[in-house]
């Protein structure tokens, strides 16, 4: 069974037992990639490498969306994050003339505080998540959420937030121009 058929099955909603097993494996691979790349991203001494690791994390997250049957979100993730936001971040790296090679000065001396805080948060979060949801299974028999459903929901129930979001983007555009403009 190829990954493509698994994904096709996941998109159709009904997963066979093997399919579930493969999807699980696929998820764990994605999760491992995401976490490993994420850790590299926050520890690497090269700014451009960090951006590339972020790219990997975001792709892996898009993969988990596919497993969850949220194909439209996955596609948007690829288009917006990998396409637009990454380019923006790389522009940021370029415009601020970051050192292109290795730079030992990227981390703060007291990064152990950050590590401590992050570890504490992870402990609390994972404890509460396990406590709350234990072994709840994802219902995989139901129909996946199609793009049409998403569109219906956005343009009916969530039309006002949607419009607000477009205004926010406009405001951010203007704000970015105003803030970054030379005058």
């Amino acid at each position, binding site marked *: 069974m190829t990954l493509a058929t698994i994904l096709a099955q996941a998109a159709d909603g009904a997963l066979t037992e093997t399919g579930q097993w493969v999807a699980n494996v696929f998820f764990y691979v994605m999760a491992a990639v995401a976490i490993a790349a994420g850790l590299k991203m926050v520890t690497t001494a090269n700014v451009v490498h960090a951006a590339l690791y972020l790219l990997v994390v975001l792709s892996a997250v898009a993969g988990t969306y596919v497993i969850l049957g949220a194909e439209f*979100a996955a596609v948007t993730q690829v288009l917006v994050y990998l396409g637009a936001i990454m380019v923006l971040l790389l522009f940021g790296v370029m415009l601020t003339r970051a050192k292109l090679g290795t730079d030992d000065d990227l981390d703060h001396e007291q990064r152990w505080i950050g590590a401590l805080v992050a570890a504490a948060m992870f402990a609390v979060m994972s404890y509460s998540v396990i406590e709350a949801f234990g072994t709840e299974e994802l219902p995989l028999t139901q129909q996946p959420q199609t793009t049409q459903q998403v569109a219906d929901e956005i343009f009916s129930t969530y039309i006002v937030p949607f419009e607000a979001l477009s205004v926010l983007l406009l405001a951010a555009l203007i704000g970015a121009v105003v803030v970054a403009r030379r005058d």
Partner: protein
Amino acid sequence: MFLNQFLLLAAALFCIGVYGVLARRNGVLVLMSIELILNSVNINLVAFGAYHGDVSGQVFALFIIGVAAAEVGVGLAIVLLIYRNRRSIDVAEANLLKG
């Protein structure tokens, strides 16, 4: 599949992002870490959407992607401004809030 495996992945990514925000000096890297945090929230939303069979989770994930785009735009503008004023984007040097 368990709901928890997605939630735990999200929690891990979130904490990695928090670590990045706290440990990095470079403004652009801080922004990248914030993107990581936003993404982990998105995983939660999509996972809960799938769990409840409700498409709203995905809708809000999409909204967050849009908000993230706005956030990166403004954030980078601010970083550029700091760079132009101080010739450095070390967030540790931006300490005008010092009391």
